[in-house]
């Protein structure tokens, strides 16, 4: 198999593109896809500082690496989730990468800084762990960006992630979620802009990028995620992709081009009804935001125990 660009022996084939690439040309392909996505969706304005949500996994480390290579002023943010050895190992990969590139890594630790970990918090709040985790990440990433003066938060959601989320939303016709499933969520009113520059790269590509650039990342799956619905949707989509390469991209990118506009008005109306959370000041549709309710449930002392001093979350500036 020969590289499509230079005819050298290839190291990876991408059936979706009906192409194979050698190492140098594959890395160019990855950077081109990210640059094209950022430009097409007007994700970053000149001079804006970007805060990259870094987990220690392949997607976020590849994203950070590509943004730095493309010349963006990008710092990392690692959120410690308190998931035992998995979090310890993930944090190590994030720190090692930052150190190797001489890049700045901001760290927030959920147990230390807020007072609960994901396994305990999810159980106390009677939420599934992935739900408590996603909620905590969205809130704390945004808060760190707003407080740190970053107008943009970049996450490592890739084509497979977005296609799997879309499949889940379509299966339930969750029209409110469909209206918000955009590569860019605008900033303002207490929100940093959220961007997903990897939507044109599959997770096989981000993993390959890390292997070929020598970036070490946590390969093990999060123990909280084992057996979740998201993985089931990905397996179903990969079975379709294997039989019909390009299906995932056609599904998700086709949605952006031809489906999203039908659902966007509902999401825009939801956004207009936001007001500051009575507890932390972050934008919310209710009186108290979902993260503060999670924190309240997760840090509530057991009945009969002496109450611990409550940590008040700081409002965004």
């Amino acid at each position, binding site marked *: 198999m020969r590289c499509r660009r230079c005819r050298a022996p290839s*190291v990876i084939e991408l059936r979706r593109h009906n192409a194979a690439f050698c190492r140098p040309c594959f890395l160019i392909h990855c950077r081109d896809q990210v640059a094209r996505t950022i430009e097409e969706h007007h994700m970053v304005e000149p001079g804006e500082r970007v805060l990259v949500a870094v*987990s220690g996994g392949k*997607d976020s480390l590849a994203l950070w690496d590509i943004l730095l290579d493309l010349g963006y002023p990008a710092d990392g943010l690692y959120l410690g989730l308190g998931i035992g050895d998995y979090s310890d190992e993930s944090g190590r990969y994030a720190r090692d990468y930052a150190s190797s590139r001489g890049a700045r890594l901001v760290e927030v630790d959920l147990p230390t800084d807020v007072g609960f970990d994901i396994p305990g918090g999810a159980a106390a709040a009677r939420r599934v762990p992935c739900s408590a985790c996603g909620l905590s990440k969205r809130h704390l990433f945004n808060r760190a960006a707003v407080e740190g003066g970053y107008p943009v938060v970049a996450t490592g959601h890739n084509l497979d992630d977005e296609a799997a989320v879309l499949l889940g939303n379509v299966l339930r016709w969750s029209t409110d979620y469909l209206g918000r499933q955009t590569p860019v969520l605008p900033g303002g009113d207490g929100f940093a802009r959220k961007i997903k520059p990897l939507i044109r790269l599959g997770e096989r590509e981000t993993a390959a990028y890390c292997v070929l650039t*020598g970036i070490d990342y946590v390969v*093990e*799956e999060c123990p909280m995620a084992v057996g979740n619905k998201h993985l089931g949707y990905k397996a179903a989509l990969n079975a379709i992709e294997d039989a019909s390469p390009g299906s995932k991209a056609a599904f998700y990118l086709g949605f952006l081009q031809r489906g999203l506009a039908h659902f966007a008005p509902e999401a825009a109306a939801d956004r207009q009804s936001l007001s500051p959370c009575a507890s932390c000041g972050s934008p919310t549709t209710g009186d108290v935001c979902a993260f503060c309710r999670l924190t309240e449930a997760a840090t509530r002392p057991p009945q009969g125990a002496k109450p611990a001093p409550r940590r008040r979350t700081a409002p965004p500036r």
Partner: protein
Amino acid sequence: MGGVKVVLRNPRRELEVAGPLRVKALLDKLELNRESVLVIRGDTLVTEDALLGDTDEIEVRPVISGGCGA
């Protein structure tokens, strides 16, 4: 004895498969979807038409993650 030494992940385990065989044949034998793994030999990747011999040691690494990517 001998064969292609294959390291699998999540959980980590090792097995040997009689060579020579193509990467695609190996993945079929292991019932793995080509979209969900990378095949690593040394510090690089190999494509599905690559021939694996009895002296080869490879890692079949899953690429599917269940989190939100951040």
